[in-house]
């Protein structure tokens, strides 16, 4: 339990780092590190670890820690941008907002009805805080790739909540979720390239032609 909580705290700290960094490559790496940690976490929770569980964890780490970051860094290289220039909320205010959200998640999670054996862990507050940070990144960044990173963080948060259910989620479904995530990022990366080619920029603030 202590190890689990320690790792979850690291994930929470990584959230704040992701909020405070303007270099997109660094953010991608931070989220990749988060992905590796998240891939390994289920191993602490299984009652017994057999080949399927180990395989699932390996696939998770491979997709979240290696494949997705690779796709995203390649897309980043193709569109030749380095920084998130003008986030709608500045970097410092967004860190403060993220920290406040994390604190609030900790208080809020204490008031929830939890199953008795899970009361002591940080799983639920960490999940809510990470989802919140994902939403901050999604809504305040304007580069298409930053928004994709925000989506990844959001998905990581949901995955943390899924840790409560490790024994219930069948392997097939878990793999299906990972596959969807992978294909989703793949399609998003292709779209980023198209946006760059058509608009000579990946600022989604330029995508305003369609409105009433």
């Amino acid at each position, binding site marked *: 339990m202590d190890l689990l909580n320690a790792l979850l705290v690291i994930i929470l700290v990584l959230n704040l780092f992701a909020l405070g960094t303007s270099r997109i490559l660094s953010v991608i790496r931070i989220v990749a590190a988060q992905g590796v940690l998240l891939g390994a976490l289920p191993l602490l929770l299984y009652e017994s670890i057999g080949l399927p569980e180990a395989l699932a964890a390996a696939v998770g780490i491979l997709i979240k820690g290696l494949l997705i970051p690779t796709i995203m860094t390649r897309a980043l290289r193709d569109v030749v941008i380095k920084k998130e220039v003008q986030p709608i909320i500045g970097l410092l205010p967004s860190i403060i907002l993220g920290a406040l959200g994390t604190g609030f998640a900790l208080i809020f999670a204490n008031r*929830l*009805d*939890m*199953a008795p054996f899970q009361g002591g862990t940080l799983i639920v507050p960490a999940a809510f805080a990470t*989802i919140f940070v994902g939403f901050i990144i*999604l809504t305040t960044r304007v580069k*298409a790739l930053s*928004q994709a990173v925000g*989506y990844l963080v*959001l*998905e990581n948060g*949901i995955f943390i*909540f*899924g840790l*409560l*259910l490790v*024994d*219930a*989620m*069948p392997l*097939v*479904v878990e793999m*299906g*979720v990972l*596959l*969807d995530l992978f*294909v*989703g990022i793949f*399609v*998003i990366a292709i*779209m980023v390239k*198209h*946006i760059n080619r*058509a*608009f000579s920029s990946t600022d*989604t603030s330029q*995508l*305003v*032609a*369609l409105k*009433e």
Partner: protein
Amino acid sequence: MAFLMIFVPIAIAGLAAIFPSNRLRPLFLPVAALAHLCMTVLVLARPDLKATSAWLVLDPAASLVLLVVSVLFLFCSIYAIGYLRYRQERSNRVFVACLCGFLGIMSLVAWSHHLGLMWVAIEGTTLVTAPLIYFNNNKRSIEATWKYLLVGSVGIALALLGTFFLAYSSLQQGLGATLQFEDLLSNAGLLSKPWLRASFILLLVGYGTKMGLAPMHTWKPDAYGEAPGVIGAVFAGGVTSCAFLAFLRVWQICNAAGEAFFTSRILLVMGLFSMAVAGLFMIGQRDFKRMLAYSSVEHMGILVLGLGIGGPALFGTMLHVVTNGMTKGVLFLSAGNIHRAFSSKNTDQVRGALRRLPVSGALFLLGFLAITGSPPFGPFVSEFAILNGAFTAGRYVAAGLFLFFLLLVFIGMGKTVLKVVQGRPPAEVGIEAVAPNATAAGGSGAVAASSAPAAKPYRDGFLTVAPILALALIVLALGIWIPAPLGDLVRNAAAFVENRP
């Protein structure tokens, strides 16, 4: 059987992806559609085929959705051959493969009785349909695809969280975490109430985004407006019906848990709000494809409203899934033809469709009359049944607002539709004058203009008219007489979602 229905279309998609000829590739579409429809009819006729495994079961509600989407897809696939002939200069590899793939994944949505698996399938439909919106390959379609991908993915991510909450509501009560639909339904009364309610809200937001309920509908006008008409039809009749089916599951579980009061209040508000938003945005709408998107928002609102009314309105609601799907096919396919003939989808340029395209124009007008609930078409019957249900259930305020919003939509939509079909068509500017400065026209939504300057002006052909005509006949037939097997199917579906044995 489930595996066949899922993997045959996907295998055909794979074949289409490696098939070399651009001219012949669209023929894969009707092959997949016919195979799928045959399997659907077979499985509907043979109840012993309806349970493949514990996870893959075809219940009555899913049978209905499967049939609707399969029929609609067949007509769309024939239309698509005609459509892709006009887009010969562009590779249709991704288009055909994704469309066939959608059919397979849609089957998985219908069959799955494991809510986790169903989520995977719904997200799969998002991913496989995104490249379809992008087919026209211009700035506006990129923007639409990006919004669809991002809004859709985030919405669906929330649905995953809701699915987890649902499993946790069972775990928290010491029942063991499960996402098996039957388990959750039979233990519904024991589930933890706060977690169940939270999961209901999240799944409503998540799958509601996919259905396009207001206020999560923002991607819809953009996507439907920029996607080819045939894709609009597949979206408005197929993708939304699948999302509705997914939402039905959690609604059923909540009702079985005795939360009907909680859910019906939310759904009534949500449904009426969607209708109101759709009605308001339709007034003064100059882009007739965006107008159709708002019509889809409205009809998703009607479906949710029907659920909110509950009991007596459920027959009408399930029937509305059928009539809405078929009518949306008529509207989007004929709108696609008009768009092509005028190289514009703005009512400032598009006038006199009845003169230039007598058949498509007439079908568009007919589709409008049908979808707004005029007799003697199918949607009239289903909307009337919902209204009747509302009065039977004593929901007079909801019924009154329902009628008011229907009227609002009729006026708003009617104004735009009449502008499109009436009057004298502008001289053939659509082709000669616009084609040379295609880039300028691209800004005003002229998609066909970007094709080769030598393109012949579009005229109605057999392949692009016959499917619409067939769909229109079905819509008309449904309004006059519902065949007994279909009636049974709808009745069974309504009884099933009401948790009656």
